[in-house]
């Protein structure tokens, strides 16, 4: 009798803790140096100035996906790993139609929100399972699975693949 009630208690405590930590994830402020700023039409905020700041840990916490593809920037196929851009947008409860992405080098490009679900776009944080330093187009790199479709192998999508990503503005 006592063993059963003890187990039940533990389970309830664990569930409560998990719920709290899940709620805290969207709202928690980044514990490390933020690598990505998301502003615009987002449903949550974890920064006094508005919008969301994410550090690498928070991005790692999202479900991770990988694909290997050829690109115009590497002379051989490269494996990209990271969360889906869609999951990132869900995390911040994004509600806009377009994403204005900005790189550290001030490169700017507009990505339709539809691309995220339609093409399985990844916000890569690893290349060939290694973290990406800034000098190697890190730390974040939005990548389309170019090898999946000839449509993607065009300048439209190459342009949208932004590296050294630092900010997303949802419009």
């Amino acid at each position, binding site marked *: 009798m006592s063993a059963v009630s003890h187990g039940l208690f533990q389970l309830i405590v664990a569930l409560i803790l998990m719920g709290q930590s899940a709620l805290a994830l969207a709202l928690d402020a980044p514990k490390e140096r933020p690598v990505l700023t998301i502003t615009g039409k987002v449903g949550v905020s974890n920064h006094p100035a508005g919008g969301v700041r994410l550090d690498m840990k928070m991005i790692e916490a999202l479900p991770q996906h990988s694909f290997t593809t*050829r690109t*115009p920037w590497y*002379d051989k196929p490269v494996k990209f790993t990271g969360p889906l851009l869609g999951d990132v947008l869900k995390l911040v409860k994004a509600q806009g139609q377009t994403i204005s992405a900005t790189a550290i*080098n001030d490169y700017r490009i507009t990505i339709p929100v539809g691309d995220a679900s339609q093409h399985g776009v990844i916000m890569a944080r690893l290349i060939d399972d290694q973290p990406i330093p*800034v*000098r190697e*187009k890190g730390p974040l790199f939005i990548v389309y699975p170019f090898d999946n479709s000839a449509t993607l*192998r*065009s300048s439209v999508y190459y342009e949208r693949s932004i590296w*050294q990503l630092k900010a997303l503005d949802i419009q």
Partner: protein
Amino acid sequence: MTFKLSDLASWQRRQWAMALAGLLLVTLSPLAWIQWQQLRLLDDVSTNQVDSIMWQAYQLEREMGRLKSRLQEAGNPAPAITEWELLEGYEIFLSRIDLLTKIPRRDLLESTPVFERATGLLDNFVRQADPVFEQPARLMGHHEQLQALISSIDQTLPTLSDLTREANRAVARFVDERNRQLHQQSVLVISLAAVQALVLLIFLALLVRHIRHQHRQYSELQKLSRELAEARDLAEAANHGKSVFLANMSHEIRTPFQGLLGMLNLLDEPNLSGRQRDYLRTAQDSAIHLLGVLNDILDVSTMESGTLKLSVGPVNLRSLAQEVDGLMQVAAADKGLSLNVHAASDLPDWVTADATRVRQIMFNLINNAIKFTNQGSIIAELSPASGGRCGVVLTVRDTGVGMDKETLQRLFTRFYQADNSLRRRIGGTGLGLDISRSLARMMGGDIQVSSEPGVGSVFTVILDLPEAATPEPERISQLDPQYTRRLKVLVAEDHPINLKYMNILLEKMGHDATFCENGQEALDLLQSQSFDVVLLDYHMPVLDGLATTEAIRTMPGPASQIKIILVTADVVNDTRKRATEVGVNEFTSKPLQAADLHRALLHCGLLEDPSIPETAVLLRPTSPSPLASYELPTRLPESPPMSSLIDLESYAEIVSMMPTETMYEMLDTVFEPPEGTLPVLQAALLEGDRDAVGYNAHKLKGTAMLLGFRAIIRTAAQIEQQAMQTAEPLSPDWVEQLQRDVDATRRALRQYELSLTA
């Protein structure tokens, strides 16, 4: 690419398919390859973003410039940037180096000296800067280090500018190269398309040639078939013409030939020497043989022209067998053979058949058997068909020479004779079996032969002869005037003998006859008198039978509806068809037969009496048998002394047909002055009136032939010949000669009558 048309024509579907597939493969695979190349080129361009190399070079140069300005900023006493931002600038610059040196198409740039120089400078810079940027905070405001970096950058930047320009040129070269490739490929595509078009054109040309060739062949074939059809029509017309000609000629020859035979008989006088008698016998045999040949030819030609018709009626097969037996025994006995012709006991008494033709088949086969048998026997049997078949089987067995297989195969070939060496010895036309078979087939049967050389032959004839009811016996006997209606008959006939004969015949049949000599006279008579029927001769002077018929049919009043019977020797159906078209009701053959005329009258609906049985005709000795007479084993009887003067058979026949007083009247028309033909002829001879002599001599000859007065025929013929065909003066001796003949004939007649009464 050179095909012979014949090869092309003989190609099967599979070969065509393979040729087409080959052609498509040859022309389309290079095209496909080129397309594939172009696709790859496009893919390469889009995948590798070839032109981005220029952008990357420029970005590198720019980023280095930005790094320089950050370094300068960092040297300020109150810098506007943090050490972090300085490091970031450096990192971005480093990423730019990788972007240029690691892109897939860096090969466009790698081989240039500028690239090597630039990478060298960049490496130096990185080697110098990396340790310094380990601690960016220390770098801030560290003028010495900053200045060293800035001067390195200043050394590197011009080379990077060169690199950007080089990248621009490399891209331009690449575009040129791609354009050149595209151009080459386009040229290749165009050439291939041209080759393809050419090949297609060649194929098309071959196809067109082939079609034209076929078309030409087709029209040639059509032309040929037209020509063949024309040739066939011509040949058929010629053949038909030949058949008609043969039929007519055989008939035309037969008539004078009968005269020739008569004359030969007249020559046969008792006071002939042995040698003369031999010559005469030879002449008679030859003549009989020739007549047989003529009859055969007539038969074949009528069969060929399709005009031979069977005239069927009730036939007593037993009598037929007896008759044939009687006629053939002499010939068999001559060769020392035993001949047995008999009818099986279960044979039906009466069958429906064409008696003359059945008899002809029997004669032919038995005669053949006699010809080819040197010793032994010949057995001919008529029996009912076995195996439930309706009909009669005639089997003729001999113990003759027999035939081998080859001979059997060719046996029924026209004009073929089993043994050429026998041909001269035996003679004959070689038509006998052909005729017999044709006849048998016309009767729904056939002839089969089996034979063994040296043992003998068996000919089996199957005839589809339906059983017939026994005819009424009293009608067999005679032509009784009381059974027939008395008809008023108008006869148009120019030939005096025929005229007389018809007169006698009609009288015998109990009809009233009115005579005229041609169609015009017939028309005149029809206008003034009424008749039941008109008998028109087909060949007549002034107006022939057909023209007369047409004229009668256009006459006013009931005369145009009169029944018309055409008397014709023409066996050709065409004549009958034309005659029927102009309105002839019936036909009778010539010389006219009582039964035939009776039948014609019956068909015209002029008599109620159903029939004159065929047997009455069958058994008549004078029936015009189509049988080849040479096949009749007849031997001319030894002439009695009287035979040179009178043909007693003919005379007896005439006498039997006519009432005595009529006979006397007729004799008077010949002998009695002043109207008798003879006195008139004598008078004309004395007067020297050549026309009158010719006409009356002809007339006398005709009458004499009818009556069988041979001596008078002979003399009259000579007179006629002299009067009509020579210019010799007419000898008055003829008068005396005629008188002598007449006297002799009269004596002979008296003698004959005495012999009858005695």
